[in-house]
């Protein structure tokens, strides 16, 4: 019985979403407060019903209800309970439901935290979010119902979750990623609402900034988790493959990063408005493009779900409607640029403009590399692939340039920066960065141009960030007082920029100085990788809950001392009969030692992959910094002080907030 309730809940949520997308919007355009007042209750109702549907599906997984087709295809009674739980989003339908749950969650969050927004704005933002929800709810109800039954031939047991997905990484990676993807819907909704009512001003930028930053922080975490998961679970030690699906998540991240910076300019200086709105539209469209690429079956990868032309067509339609409608609105309503605000050639505005140029170029590059083969294939002009070298060759210069620009831009001032002063300011950081970079390269023993540029850009960003912090925190009352006086959003920025530097140095060092060896080994052999020796001790059998494994034992030695014992495995899963390589890694801040078992060559001999990965952890550590920076920035006091100031203003003038009876009652 339960699954049918789930489906009913989804349909009810769809109805509420339709109401939400129409009623408050009409109310705001007709100036009817009573209609606008529906926006919050409708948002809550929609979230509740989507939540019910999600809970029902989760329940079906936990109790092994294989009469539900989706459960039968993605679960098995032998799975441990936590994988049964994460299997909810292990396939297309369930992950789509998770996506919608998060979309409804963001909508609810906007409804809750928008008390200080003008009611017209709130109503319109929630209506736009309602429209997005309608799109996805229609998609799930029409093409991807997770509650379809297998009746009357209920299978005795499920087909099992893809063994690749039976992992902690999968429990957390999709939720984080979807939080990011979907979060950009809020920035999009703010942009559309601003276009509708023509209030494209600093206040609008201030409202959409924290939402964009949070979405960006989640997306950063999600991408990093995916990369980490690929590193240890896909078995072969790569951390970024420029796989189209990875690119699909990188695209909104890049344009979202541009959006964050452009919003800062719009908030502080009131310029770049049209550009910022356009970026918000583009970023969300890229999120939709990602959904299309992953779910339509045009790609085949670890991530892509079973191909179904109907789904692809639906998503392409959704993408087209979103892009065309919002760009049309943009064309009609975007303000004609009559900004009289002036800024000089080395002002912070110009640096942030260049930042946007670089980030957008990177977005376009990645998009071209990802979509070009698909388009050619679709037009039947041939099958080709664009490999990692393309992306490495084109992306690296942009990343380095962004780093160099960032280091200089940190010192720049709004409106006007004296070029000579900036040049002198940069001399010391330049000298320090060059020395440190040289030392790092000597330490790793080898000079290549790319290694130098990558490390230099990272060090440069780090030095400039700390230098600026030092300058800003100088105070007559002492350094500590000066440090305390800085705002949280400033510290957020510091953390974000340091995170970028950490990720960049990690990527550069591991790509340039990592060592990868495939060797033939029999038990008793010792092979060296970098400064380390790896001794193959033995290999035997091990029985897991739903697999049997070849279980190896390796000693990792440094200068003859044992530093770690590793147990890589080759697993054979009982249900699907699929084989999985489980690498084992001796992880450390300065380096990872990675051992994976390949195929059996003779009775005795095995192919073994050994890797030495210096600073590989820094890749993901940097993303943690970036995400932490994002969360810290939105905890900034100014977002709350303004709120209190607004309330005071309201209380003193005694103008009740129209259309929202509860808060009006409370303040007046």
């Amino acid at each position: 019985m339960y699954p049918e309730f789930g489906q009913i809940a989804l349909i009810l949520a769809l109805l509420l979403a339709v109401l939400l997308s129409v009623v408050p919007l009409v109310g705001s355009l007709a100036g009817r407060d009573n209609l606008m007042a529906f926006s919050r209750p409708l948002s809550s109702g929609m979230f509740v019903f989507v939540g019910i549907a999600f809970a029902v599906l989760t329940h079906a997984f936990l109790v092994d209800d294989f009469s539900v087709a989706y459960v039968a295809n993605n679960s098995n009674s032998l799975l441990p309970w936590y994988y049964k739980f994460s299997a909810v989003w292990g396939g297309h339908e369930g992950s789509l439901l998770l996506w919608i749950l998060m979309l409804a969650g963001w909508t609810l969050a906007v409804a809750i935290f928008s008390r200080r927004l003008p009611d017209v704005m709130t109503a319109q933002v929630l209506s736009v979010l309602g429209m997005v929800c309608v799109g996805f709810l229609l998609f799930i109800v029409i093409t991807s119902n997770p509650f379809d039954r297998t009746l009357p031939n209920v299978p005795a047991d499920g087909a099992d979750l893809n063994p690749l997905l039976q992992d902690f990484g999968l429990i957390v990676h999709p939720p984080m990623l979807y939080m990011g993807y979907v979060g950009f819907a809020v920035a999009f909704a703010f942009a559309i609402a601003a276009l509708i009512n023509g209030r494209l001003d600093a206040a609008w930028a201030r409202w959409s900034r924290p939402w964009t930053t949070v979405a960006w922080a989640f997306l950063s975490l999600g991408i990093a988790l995916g990369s980490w998961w690929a590193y240890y679970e896909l078995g072969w030690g790569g951390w970024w493959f420029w796989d189209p699906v990875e690119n699909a998540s990188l695209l909104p991240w890049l344009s979202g990063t541009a959006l964050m910076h452009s919003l800062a300019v719009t908030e502080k200086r009131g310029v770049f408005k049209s550009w910022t709105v356009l970026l918000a539209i583009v970023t969300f469209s890229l999120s939709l493009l990602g959904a299309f690429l992953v779910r339509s079956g045009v790609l085949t990868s670890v991530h892509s779900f079973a191909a179904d032309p109907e789904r692809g067509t639906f998503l392409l339609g959704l993408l087209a409607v979103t892009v065309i409608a919002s760009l049309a609105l943009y064309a009609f309503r975007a303000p004609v640029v009559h900004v009289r605000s002036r800024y000089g050639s080395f002002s912070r505005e110009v640096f942030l403009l260049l930042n946007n140029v670089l980030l957008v170029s990177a977005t376009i590059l990645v998009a071209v590399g990802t979509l070009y083969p698909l388009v050619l294939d679709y037009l039947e002009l041939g099958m080709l692939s664009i490999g990692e070298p393309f992306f490495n060759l084109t992306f690296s210069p942009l990343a380095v340039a962004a780093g160099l620009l960032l280091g200089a831009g940190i010192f720049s001032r709004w409106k006007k920066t004296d070029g000579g002063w900036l040049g002198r300011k940069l001399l010391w950081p330049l000298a320090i960065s060059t020395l440190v970079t040289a030392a790092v390269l000597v330490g790793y023993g080898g000079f290549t141009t790319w290694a130098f540029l990558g490390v230099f850009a990272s060090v440069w960003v780090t030095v400039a960030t700390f230098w600026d912090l030092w300058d800003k925190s100088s105070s007559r009352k002492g350094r500590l007082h000066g440090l305390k006086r800085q705002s949280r959003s400033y510290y957020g920025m510091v953390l974000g920029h340091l995170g970028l530097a950490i990720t960049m140095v990690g990527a550069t060092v591991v790509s340039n100085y990592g060592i990868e060896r495939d060797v033939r080994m029999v038990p008793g052999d010792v092979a060296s990788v970098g400064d380390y020796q790896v001794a193959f001790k033995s290999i035997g059998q091990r029985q897991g809950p739903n697999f049997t494994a070849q279980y190896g034992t390796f000693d990792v030695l440094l200068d003859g001392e044992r530093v770690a014992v590793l147990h890589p495995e080759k697993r054979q899963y009982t249900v699907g009969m699929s084989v999985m390589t489980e690498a084992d890694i001796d992880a450390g801040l300065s380096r990872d030692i990675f051992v994976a078992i390949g195929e059996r060559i003779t009775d005795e001999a095995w192919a073994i992959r050994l890797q030495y990965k210096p600073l590989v952890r820094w890749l993901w550590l940097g993303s943690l910094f970036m995400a932490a920076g994002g969360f810290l920035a939105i905890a900034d006091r100014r977002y709350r002080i303004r709120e209190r100031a607004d309330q005071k203003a309201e209380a003193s003038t005694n103008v009740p907030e129209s259309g929202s009876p509860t808060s009006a009652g409370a303040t007046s």
Partner: protein
Amino acid sequence: MHPIRKKRLTIVLFLLVGLAIAVGLTTYALRQNINLFYDPSQISAGEAPVDVRIRAGGMVEEGSVRRDPDSLKVEFRVTDFNASVPIEYIGILPDLFAEGQGVVAMGRLDGNGRLVADQVLAKHDENYMPPEVAAALEKASKGQHKAGDSAETVSY
């Protein structure tokens, strides 16, 4: 020149230069790094270029996998059931590599029609067949004249 115009001109020039660099890099990189796909029929007909990095794919022929007991060298043949190509690879094969499975190999053809692969891909899913392989098999099963037709479009 008026200072504001001068500033605008600088910005526009900056943008143009940046754009030019980006476009130049992209086209250069694209030209270097596009890997065309060829099926075994095309390769054995001599349509694939020698010593250029290409992708080749098909089913691993039953009984064709030979492993060197003293190194990581593997030799096998891939087929589209119409023609087959020998492939040589040194390294670790993916988990799902097996006889009768669809694979894609990246590498260069030597003078003797043998593909020296530096990468072999098989998908992490037992039901998966690389799309190029599926298309190649379908093509081969439709007969020679058809294969000739679409070969033109592939090697355009």
